[in-house]
Structure formats: structure tokens, C-alpha cells
């Protein structure tokens, strides 16, 4: 087993708790002194920084929401003076107004370290060439993994996103060892390689680190097959750091949260009550070492679980599941909670194309759910009955899993927009 920082990544629970107690207290003091929003909220709740001594006191602290970041845009949540800030990143703003975050030199060092932990956990060494196809720029994906690769001393290849032809050429000519990009782009690269007649088993590429959007176990298998690699999951969010908040190890059994820098809570989104291991709830993060932009109890709106069970890799950090959906992605259709990831799971289980789109509408008072799936050549037949059977099988399977009826519509290949960034999976026409 290889670790980037063995003494930290395999520390005892007592040691981790001790770090968290000290660092949480220091961060609370920092934000109380420097961020008016936190001071006002803590004062209103009658909580003083000295009341926060251990992680048991965490629940005394107020939550932070995405809306708070918008309300204090651009710099209201910064806890360090601008002279100490060395970089800004911004979230894409796909779900509303963009937000901006800052990093001090120390913050960038920490970020580099946690991304280096991820790289080592998937087997990367200093000799490896890390092909980063996340976008470089305000998006944290590109520069985040890039920082990790440099911290570890790898050869970073800052390809950035787009120009798929060129990505494949570089992969082949430069001999990329590890690929970092969104899972949907990895699927697309796999498809493009096949179309181009590129034999991926002949490439040195052996691992991929994929994140920044939801993906499923079935997508993992499909990527592993098409690119001939092991595919690993990375989790992060701009508000907390960027990629690397948690990272998957070679066991591929959940992502280890970098608990020396972040505290994870799983809460019931309605009541705020903490959920036990294995039970679903909203993921909440607190930063305990960040200087420029330390958020306390940030509500991610991602739904997931944690486990404290020992991992075979030897790392002691708690593991979180892949997010199973978002509290705000959750579609309520005819009163039933539906996550797009459930639909994707069905499609991939039925060996259908991963290119799909969910269209929700309302006819009169009744919600309608339509799932458009690109037909693949192997599912095509010259008779209507056979194609209708493909639709019928999918419809039945979706109904049994979701609990509500969905209309399946097979569409021509290439008609659902491919994205090199985040995929637009849901069109909800009910929201006017």
C-alpha cells in the first residue's frame, strides 16, 4: 500500500479527533473575528468562540448555505485579508448566480497535498504523466488536480477540456498514465477512441480520477472497459476546496474524507439530526484549516452516507458514499421522489446507451416523466415489434424501480447534446 502522507492518512481515531478539536476551535475564532455573517449568527445564537472546544460542540454552530455565499458575494465570506490571498476560483453558476472563493498560499499547499493523496491512492508515482482534461480556469477541477500532480512531483499534462481528437493524440503520443476529467467526458473519450479505431489496451493509461458530476457504478464499469483502466472517484466542491475533499483508494469502496482538513456530517435535511453510519442524509462539511474561505457546516445539498468501518487500504479516514443525488436535483413527480441517478442505473443495467435525457412536464394536473434514450445499433431491428419491446422492457423496469410510470422514447444517436463539462440530464418544464 502506498500513501502520500502515511502518518496522517492512517492516524488513529484519537489523533484525528484531537486534530479536529484544535483546528475547529481555531477556525471558529478566525471566522468570528473576520467574517461578519458568522459573528452575527453566532451572537444571535448566543455562542461565543470559546464555547467551541471539541467537535461535540459543532452542532452549536449555524449552518452555511449556498444562498449565504450569494448574499455576501463577492468577498463577504473571506476570512483572510486580500494581501494574503493568492488565487480566486468561481463556481460555474449553473444553478444560480456564481460564487467566488479564495485561497492563501497555505490553502493551495493543503489543496495540493490532498490531491496528491488521491493520486498516490490510485497508484500514481513521480514518474507518471498526469493527463488533466478538467477545464483550467475559474473551475477548480483543472488547477486542483494539476496542483496535486505537481505536489507529488508527477509530470503534469495540462491539456484542459475540449478538442477530443487532440486529447486522444496526446494520450497516445505523450503516453499519459493517469487521466483526470469528468466521468461523462471519460465515457465520451472512450466512445471517440473506439470510433477512431484506437486500441486503448495498447495505451500506457492505467487509471482515471473522475468527479465533478454524479456518476454510477455502471458508468464506472463502462469507462473501465472502454478505456482499459481502473476508474476512481474523487469528490469535492468549490465552496469547500475543489476536488480532493474526499478521495477513493484502490479498494473502490467509498471515498476517504480528508478529516485532518474537513469535518463531515450527514444530517436529516429536514430536522438537522445526525444520521448513523450507512443511512442517507445531506452531506455537510466544515473547513478546519482553510484560511481564506473557511466555511462552517456548509450544506452541500448532496445526499450520501458515511461509514467508519475499517478500510482494507489501511487509511483511517471515514469513507463517504458517492453522492446518490442532490436535495435540489431530486424530482418530485406525482408525489414520488425520483433521482436522475436511479434512471441512469436502470439504463446501464439494461445495456442501454448512457446518453439520456429526462423530461418532466405537466399535462393538466398530472406530472409526466419522459426518458429519452439514444438507440444503439445492437438494439435496432427491422421490425416495429422488436423495437417496441426494447421500449416496453425499459418502461417496465423503470416503473418497478421508480414506483411511477415513465414514457421511454428511443431517439437517434447523437441527438442528445454531449457535453464536455457537466451533462444536462434533466429538463423540468414544470418550472416556469
Amino acid at each position: 500500500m502506498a500513501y502520500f502522507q502515511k502518518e496522517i492518512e492512517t492516524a488513529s481515531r484519537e489523533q484525528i479527533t484531537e486534530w479536529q478539536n484544535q483546528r475547529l476551535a481555531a477556525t471558529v475564532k478566525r471566522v468570528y473575528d473576520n467574517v461578519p455573517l458568522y459573528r452575527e449568527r453566532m451572537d444571535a445564537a448566543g455562542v461565543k468562540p470559546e464555547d467551541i472546544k471539541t467537535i461535540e460542540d459543532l452542532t452549536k454552530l449555524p449552518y452555511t448555505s449556498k444562498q449565504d455565499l450569494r448574499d455576501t458575494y463577492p468577498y463577504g465570506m473571506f476570512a483572510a485579508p486580500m494581501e494574503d490571498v493568492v488565487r480566486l476560483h468561481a463556481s460555474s453558476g449553473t444553478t444560480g448566480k456564481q460564487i467566488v472563493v479564495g485561497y492563501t498560499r497555505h490553502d493551495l499547499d493543503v489543496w495540493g497535498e490532498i490531491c496528491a493523496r488521491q493520486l498516490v491512492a490510485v497508484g500514481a508515482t513521480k514518474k507518471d504523466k498526469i493527463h488533466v482534461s478538467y477545464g483550467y480556469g475559474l473551475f477548480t477541477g483543472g488547477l486542483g488536480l494539476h496542483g496535486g500532480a505537481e505536489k507529488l512531483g508527477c509530470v503534469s499534462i495540462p491539456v484542459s477540456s475540449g478538442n477530443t481528437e487532440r486529447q486522444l493524440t496526446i494520450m497516445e503520443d505523450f503516453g499519459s498514465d493517469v487521466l483526470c476529467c469528468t466521468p461523462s467526458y471519460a465515457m465520451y473519450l472512450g466512445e471517440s477512441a473506439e470510433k477512431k479505431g484506437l486500441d486503448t489496451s495498447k495505451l500506457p493509461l492505467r487509471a482515471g480520477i473522475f468527479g465533478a458530476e454524479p456518476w454510477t457504478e455502471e458508468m464506472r464499469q463502462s469507462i473501465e472497459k472502454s478505456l482499459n483502466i481502473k476508474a476512481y472517484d474523487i469528490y469535492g466542491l468549490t465552496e469547500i476546496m475543489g476536488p480532493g475533499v474526499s478521495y477513493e483508494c484502490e479498494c473502490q469502496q467509498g471515498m476517504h474524507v480528508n478529516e485532518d482538513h474537513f469535518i463531515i456530517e450527514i444530517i436529516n435535511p429536514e430536522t438537522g439530526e445526525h444520521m448513523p453510519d450507512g443511512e442517507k442524509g445531506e452531506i455537510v462539511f466544515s473547513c478546519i484549516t482553510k484560511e481564506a474561505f473557511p466555511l462552517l457546516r456548509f450544506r452541500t445539498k448532496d445526499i450520501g452516507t458515511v461509514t467508519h468501518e475499517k478500510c482494507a487500504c489501511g487509511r483511517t479516514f471515514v469513507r463517504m458514499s458517492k453522492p446518490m443525488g442532490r436535495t435540489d436535483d431530486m424530482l418530485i413527480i406525482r408525489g414520488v421522489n425520483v433521482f436522475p441517478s436511479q434512471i441512469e442505473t436502470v439504463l446501464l443495467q439494461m445495456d442501454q446507451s448512457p446518453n439520456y435525457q429526462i423530461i418532466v412536464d405537466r399535462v393538466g394536473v398530472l406530472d409526466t416523466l419522459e426518458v429519452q434514450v439514444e438507440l444503439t445499433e445492437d438494439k435496432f431491428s427491422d421490425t416495429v415489434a422488436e423495437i417496441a419491446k426494447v421500449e416496453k422492457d425499459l418502461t417496465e423496469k423503470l416503473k418497478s424501480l421508480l414506483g411511477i410510470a415513465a414514457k421511454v422514447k428511443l431517439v437517434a444517436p447523437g441527438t442528445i447534446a454531449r457535453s464536455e463539462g457537466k451533462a444536462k440530464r434533466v429538463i423540468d418544464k414544470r418550472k416556469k
Partner: protein
Amino acid sequence: MFMKQLSVFVENKQGALAKVMALLSDNGINMRAVSIADTQDFGILRVIVKEVDKAKDILKSNNVIVSVTEVVGVELADTPGALSKVMAVLDEGNINLEYVYAFVTPGKAESAYMVVRAGDNAKATAVLNAAGIHTLTQEDLEAML
């Protein structure tokens, strides 16, 4: 022993058929027979052409879902009762039909042709031939077009 047909997936939306036709037209592919099975969401376009493989490659490389299907080509006299006889023979032979369509071709004014996709094409061909009805191979078709 069979004729070949192009089967093409066409979405039921404006311009979908036009796209396929433009691809065939731009590449100088002439169609001898065309039939479309339509449903609410999609259609299956069935086409008889001389250059089946070329047409398939063109469509495929343009992201159109296409397959080559074997069908039975039946030659019959262009007179009342000819198709009725063919159907009676197939019925007596216990042959189920998936679909049927017809075409005629210049220079063969006395004949009409049926494209038959049977549940069992080989058996359909055998009973037709046994009843003295001529069936076409792809070579026959290509020579004729």
C-alpha cells in the same frame, strides 16, 4: 439466396427522413422501393437499393442507425390474382409475415415484385419455389437494376 434490404431507424420528427434522403441523394444512391413502418415515436424506413453496402456505410458514418436485413424477393405477373396466389401458398405453408411491400421496375413491365419479410425466410422461399413461384437473389436484383 435472399435479397437485401436497408433498414433505417428514423425518429418521428420533422426533417428526420429528409436527412436520410439527402445522404443517399448526395451519394448518388437510387432507390428501387421504399416502405415506412410508423409508430408514434419512430419509424423504420425500409429501402431496396442496388449498392446496399455502400449505402449502409454512408448512413452509418453519419450517425444513422442502419442494418441490412435479408428479405424474400418474389416475382409475380402484373395481373389480378397474382399476389392472392402467392399469399395462399404462404398461408398453406404456415408462413407468418412480418411485413410486405411491392415495387415494379422499368423494362420489366409485365412483372411486379414483392418484398416479403417472413418469420422464416428460408421456409417461405422453399414453399414458393415448390409452387413454381420465382424468388430473387441479391444478384438477380442487382442485375435487374
